[in-house]
Every structure is written in structure tokens, then in C-alpha cells.
């Protein structure tokens, strides 16, 4: 691509027109790579654990490797989810105040869901 429209200072800063650089882009993809590994494990593992009822689910969640993978999955998924929704909000909501409010709500939802699931997995794991 022809980058001659950018000033040398803009190029050196490397932040682009959105003023945030490629951080978002990279994070979205790195969490995606983590999810390529974690999601198939979760879907198959959970599909097998669900029919076993409450005891089966707790027993499954209390296994150390499952607990670790679940917390990693929650971290990657909720982070990836937040980044994705951020782009959707930025694309469609143009009123500044509303956009800021939704971006904050998006952060709160994603981080709250992570805190709730991670704590729950820890509780089941420690309690068993």
C-alpha cells in the first residue's frame, strides 16, 4: 500500500487514524488462536458432562485440568467477546455519549462474566 499520505511523525508513532495502533487487532487474533484450541475441548467435554447431572458436572469441573482449561477459556472467550462487541459498537453507534456508555457497559459485562465464572470454577475445584 502507498503510505505516502502519512507524515513521518505519524508513521513513527504507528497509531493510525483510530489513535490506538494495532493492539486491538493483535489481541483479537491471539485470543482467537487460544479459542481454536479451547472451544473444541469445551464443546465436546461439556456435551459429555451435561447428561451426568449436577454430580457429574461438579465432578467434571473439579478435575484440575478441566478447571484450568475452563478458566483459560473464560479469559480468552470473554476478552475476545469484548473486543468483537467493541468493533460492532464503534461501527454502528455514532453518537459520542451513547458510544462511550455502551463501550463501558461492554467492558463491565465481559469482566463481570469472567469474574463470576472464574470464581465459580475455583469454588467447585477447592470445595471438592
Amino acid at each position: 500500500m502507498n503510505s505516502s499520505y502519512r507524515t513521518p511523525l505519524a508513521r513513527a508513532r504507528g497509531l493510525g487514524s483510530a489513535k490506538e495502533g494495532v493492539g486491538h487487532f493483535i489481541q483479537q487474533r491471539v485470543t482467537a488462536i487460544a479459542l481454536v484450541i479451547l472451544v473444541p475441548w469445551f464443546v465436546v467435554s461439556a456435551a459429555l458432562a451435561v447428561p451426568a447431572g449436577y454430580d457429574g458436572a461438579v465432578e467434571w469441573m473439579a478435575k484440575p485440568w478441566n478447571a484450568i482449561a475452563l478458566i483459560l477459556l473464560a479469559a480468552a472467550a470473554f476478552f475476545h467477546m469484548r473486543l468483537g462487541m467493541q468493533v460492532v459498537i464503534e461501527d454502528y453507534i455514532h453518537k459520542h455519549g451513547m458510544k462511550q456508555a455502551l463501550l463501558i457497559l461492554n467492558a463491565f459485562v465481559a469482566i463481570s462474566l469472567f469474574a463470576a465464572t472464574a470464581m465459580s470454577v475455583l469454588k467447585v475445584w477447592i470445595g471438592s
Partner: protein
Amino acid sequence: MASTNTGDSRPLSPHLQVWKFHATMLASIMHRMTGVGLYVGSVLLAAWIVSAATGPEAYEAVLGVMLHPVGQVFLFLWTLAVTYHFANGIRHLLWDGPKVGFSPKVASAWSVFNFVFAIAASAGIWALAYYA
């Protein structure tokens, strides 16, 4: 859509009205739609994990919602969204990383494959949950 400003090589924003419908376009739209759907669906999934930590009554309550016919329909749509977003997401990673599959023919065929994969993989996961 070609630039009428001679000497200006900056890309033009495409007009939505002149886009012919094609599979890759549908794949892109569906990627975003399933992404938003998964965001909503993740709340149910978080509820399932939290309920397991809360106790048998809470767990049965969440399971009751999931096993209700309406819950089952949403759960199946969620499975479709996961498998589709998964397959198409891998394509995005391959587009961004090794930069393969950009030719229109390959991109179209790959889009169709992702839809077929989502249906087949979802059927497989549900068969696993019901018969395993």
C-alpha cells in the same frame, strides 16, 4: 466504482447498493451476527457454570431452562453459531496470517464449506450429548 480523480490512488468506499450478492459476503455478515449471538449466549453458559458452584437447586433450575424446548432451540442455535464462528474464524486467521484463500473461487467455496461444517459439526455435538 473506479476513481474519477486521476492520480488519486486512495481506495474508495464501496457503495452498498452496487454489491452483487455472493457467498463470501454472506459469510462475513454471518460471522458478525454469530459473534453478537455468542455474546448473548455466553450469559447462559456463565449461568451454567455459576449454578454448578451455587448448588443442586440452582443447577437444576438452569438445566430446566436449557432442557425446555425453547431452551433447546436456543442451545442448538448457539451450537450452530459456535461451530460457524469457529470455522470462519480459522479462515480469518489464515487470511490474516499466511494470507491464503483470497481468490474469489476459493473464497466462495470456503464460505459454503463453513456453513456446511457448522451444520455437520452441530449435528455431531448433539448426537454426542444425546447418545454418548
